[in-house]
C-alpha cells in the first residue's frame, strides 16, 4: 500500500529528482529484486540522517530495515559476517565521520578477509556515507573518501548527480565487494537540508532501469583549454565556475570520475591529450589526497601532452573549522577554482 502511494507521488513529479530521491528509488528497486538485500544502521527506521530510508520501514518492515543501537563496530562487523554468509547488507551512516570509530572492521577485516583467506570469502556490502563539510565543525566534516582511498580491497563511489547516484547505487548493491558509496552532505537534497546551488543538483532520472558500471567516469562539460577533474560538491563548483570562465573565453573540459576506486584514468588521459592542461579539485585534505594519485598517473602516462604543470586544488591540511567564514576559506570555492584555472591557462 505504501509502495503504491510512493509510486503515485513520483508519477506526479516530472522525474526531476534530487540525489536522495534517486537513491531511494534505487534502494527500493534493489530490495524488491533481491531478498538478500537489507539496510542496517542508526535511526534508519525514521529515514536516517539524510532520509535515505524514508518510508522504507513501513514498506519493508523491521526485518529488512534494521534499526541499530549506537554501535558502529558492532553493526559493521555484523554486516561483514552476514555478507560472508551470503546476505547483501547496506550499512547506512548518519554521518560518514562515525565510521572512523569502527575503522578496524573496515581496514583490517572487511577489506582483507578475501585476500588473507586466499579468495575463500566475498563480502558484498555497501556503505551509504554522507561525506564532506556542511557547517558542523571538524568532527562532522571528514572527506571520508580521501581517508579510505589508501586501502586496497575496497571500491569507492562518489556520485554528484541524481542520474549517476541511481545507476551507480544499483551497481554497488550488485557488486561482490565492499563498496563505499560517498555522497556529499550538501548534495542529497533531503528535506530540511541545504542543497548546493547548481544546474545539476537536481536532474532527470528515467523510470526504466539502468546501471552505471563502477570505474567509468564521464565528461560533464566539453571544452578545449583546460581539463578539470572534480567530484562530489567540487564538481558543482567547477560547473558553476565554467559558466563564468566561458564568458571570459576560457573553455574547460570537466571530468567527473564518479568512482575513485576503480578510477577511469583513460578518460583523463584522453582529455589531457586534447587540452594540454590539468587541474584536479577535491575537498579532501591536500596531503595524500586522491588528486595526488591522479596527478602522478597523468604525469606518468601523458606528460608529453602537457603544456603546463599539473595543478591541484584541495583543502589545506587543517581540520575543518566551524565558522562559515573560515570553512569557506579553506574549502575550494568557485572563486579559487576560477583563479587557479586562469593561472593555469597563463602557464
Amino acid at each position, binding site marked *: 500500500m505504501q509502495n503504491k502511494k510512493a509510486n503515485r507521488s513520483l508519477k506526479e513529479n516530472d522525474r526531476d529528482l534530487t540525489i536522495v530521491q534517486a537513491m531511494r528509488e534505487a534502494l527500493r528497486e534493489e530490495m524488491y529484486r533481491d531478498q538478500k538485500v537489507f539496510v542496517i544502521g542508526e535511526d534508519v527506521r525514521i529515514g536516517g540522517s539524510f532520509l535515505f530510508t524514508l518510508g522504507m520501514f513501513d514498506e519493508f518492515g523491521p*526485518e529488512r530495515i534494521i534499526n*541499530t*543501537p549506537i*554501535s558502529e*563496530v*558492532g*553493526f*559493521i*562487523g*555484523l*554486516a*561483514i*559476517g*552476514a*555478507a*560472508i*554468509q*551470503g*546476505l547483501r547488507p547496506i550499512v547506512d551512516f548518519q554521518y560518514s565521520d562515525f565510521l572512523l570509530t569502527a575503522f*578496524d*572492521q573496515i581496514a*583490517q*577485516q572487511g577489506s582483507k*578477509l*578475501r*585476500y*588473507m*583467506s*586466499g*579468495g*575463500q*570469502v*566475498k*563480502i*558484498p556490502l555497501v556503505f551509504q556515507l554522507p561525506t564532506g563539510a556542511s557547517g558542523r565543525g571538524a568532527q562532522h566534516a571528514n572527506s571520508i573518501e580521501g581517508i579510505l582511498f589508501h586501502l*586496497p*580491497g575496497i*571500491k569507492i563511489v562518489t556520485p554528484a548527480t541524481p542520474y549517476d547516484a541511481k545507476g551507480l547505487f544499483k551497481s554497488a548493491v550488485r557488486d*561482490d*565487494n565492499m563498496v563505499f558509496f560517498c555522497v556529499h552532505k550538501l548534495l542529497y537534497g533531503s528535506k530540511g537540508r541545504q542543497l548546493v546551488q547548481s544546474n545539476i543538483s537536481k536532474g532527470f532520472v528515467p523510470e526504466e532501469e539502468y546501471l552505471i558500471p563502477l570505474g567509468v567516469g564521464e565528461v560533464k562539460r566539453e571544452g578545449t583549454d583546460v581539463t578539470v577533474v572534480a567530484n562530489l560538491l567540487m564538481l558543482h563548483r567547477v560547473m558553476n565556475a565554467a559558466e563564468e570562465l566561458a564568458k571570459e573565453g576560457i573553455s574547460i573540459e570537466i571530468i567527473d570520475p564518479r568512482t575513485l576506486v576503480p578510477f577511469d584514468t583513460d578518460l583523463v588521459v584522453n582529455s589531457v591529450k586534447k587540452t594540454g592542461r590539468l587541474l584536479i579539485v577535491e575537498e579532501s585534505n591536500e596531503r595524500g589526497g586522491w588528486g595526488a594519485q591522479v596527478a602522478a598517473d597523468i604525469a606518468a602516462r601523458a606528460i608529453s601532452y602537457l603544456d603546463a604543470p599539473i595543478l591541484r586544488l584541495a583543502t589545506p591540511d587543517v581540520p575543518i573549522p566551524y565558522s562559515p567564514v573560515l570553512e569557506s576559506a579553506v574549502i575550494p570555492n568557485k572563486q579559487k577554482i576560477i583563479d587557479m584555472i586562469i593561472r593555469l591557462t597563463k602557464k
Partner: protein
Amino acid sequence: MKIRKPEPPKNKSITGYEVNLLEEMYRRMYRIRKFELMVNTQFLKGNIPGTIHLSHGQEASAVGACLALNEDDFITITHRGHGQAIAKGLSTKSIMAELFGKATGCCKGKGGSLHIGNMSVGVLPAIAIVGASSPIAAGMAFAFKRKESKQIVCNFFGDGTANKGDWHEALNLAAIWSLPVIFLCENNLYGVSTHFSDVFPIENIADRAPAYGMPGITIYGNDPIIVYEEVLEAAKRARSGKGPTLVECLTYRQGGHKRDDPATYRPKEEVDAWLKQDPIPNFRERLLKDNRFSDENLKAIEQEIDVEIAEAVEFAQNSPMLSISLALEDVYAE
C-alpha cells in the same frame, strides 16, 4: 597479581559417553598437542617465517567445544587458533602447508599462522585482531538465523578480548536480536604478559553476561567433557532461537605468548599447578580407568597421529611455493 590455580571438579564418570566420542576427544586433543609441538620444532628449524602463537595446554576447551557443534556450524578463531581449527576438523596438512607459506595451504599461503581457516569445514580464516571477530561471528549468526538454516556460530576468544569495545558491542547485538552464537572464552589467565587479575575487577568474565541479558557460565576448561556438555547446552539454546550464551573456560597457556616469549613473568607456583592439570595425560588416565579402553587402543591412536603430523611436515615441505603471479590475485571478487 592474584595467582589463580586450577580447580578441577571431581571427575565426572565417562561411562555414559559413547566410545566414539571419547576416542575422538582424545584423538583431537592429542593431534593438537603434537601439531603445536611440531610447529615449534619447524619454527626453530627456520621452516616457518614470521611468528607463531601456540595453544598447547588449551586443547580441552577447543576440542570439547567443537565436538558439541555440527559439521556445518561455523567457528571464528583467534591468533592462537591452530588448536581451534584442528578441533573443528581442518586438516593438519593444510595448516602446516599454510604455515610454510605454500600454495597447498588452507588459505593458499596468503594467510599464514595468524589467518588459518577454511570455509569448507566451518572455520572462518582467523581474525588476529583481539575483539574484532566477535561482531563478525554475530553477523554470520545473523545470516544463519535469517536463512533459518539452523546453523550456529561459536566465537572463540581469549580473556584479553573481554576488555575490548568490539566484544561488548557484539554481545549486545547478539543478545538484543537473539542470534545463534556462542561466545566461547578460553581464559588462559594471560593477555601476553598481563595477568587476568590485574585487568579484571571481577572474579569471572562470565559474570558480565547477565549485564547483556544472556546466560554466562564459568567452567573448568581443561576437561573436554565439561566443555562439551556446556557448549552442547549453549548450542541447543542458540539453535532453538533463544539467543547467545557466554561460556568461559578456565585453562592455561603452557608456553609463552609467542615464539620468543619465555613467559618468565609467571609465578612458578601457578605454572606448576597448571602443568599438573595437563588436559591430555589427565584425560588419558580417565579413559584407561574405563574398561572400554586399553593402553593399546590409545597407543594406536597416538601412533596414527604421530604419522599424520610427520606426513603433514613432509607435505608442507614438498608442496610447491606460490607462484609470484598470485600476489595480486584475490583482492577483489569478480
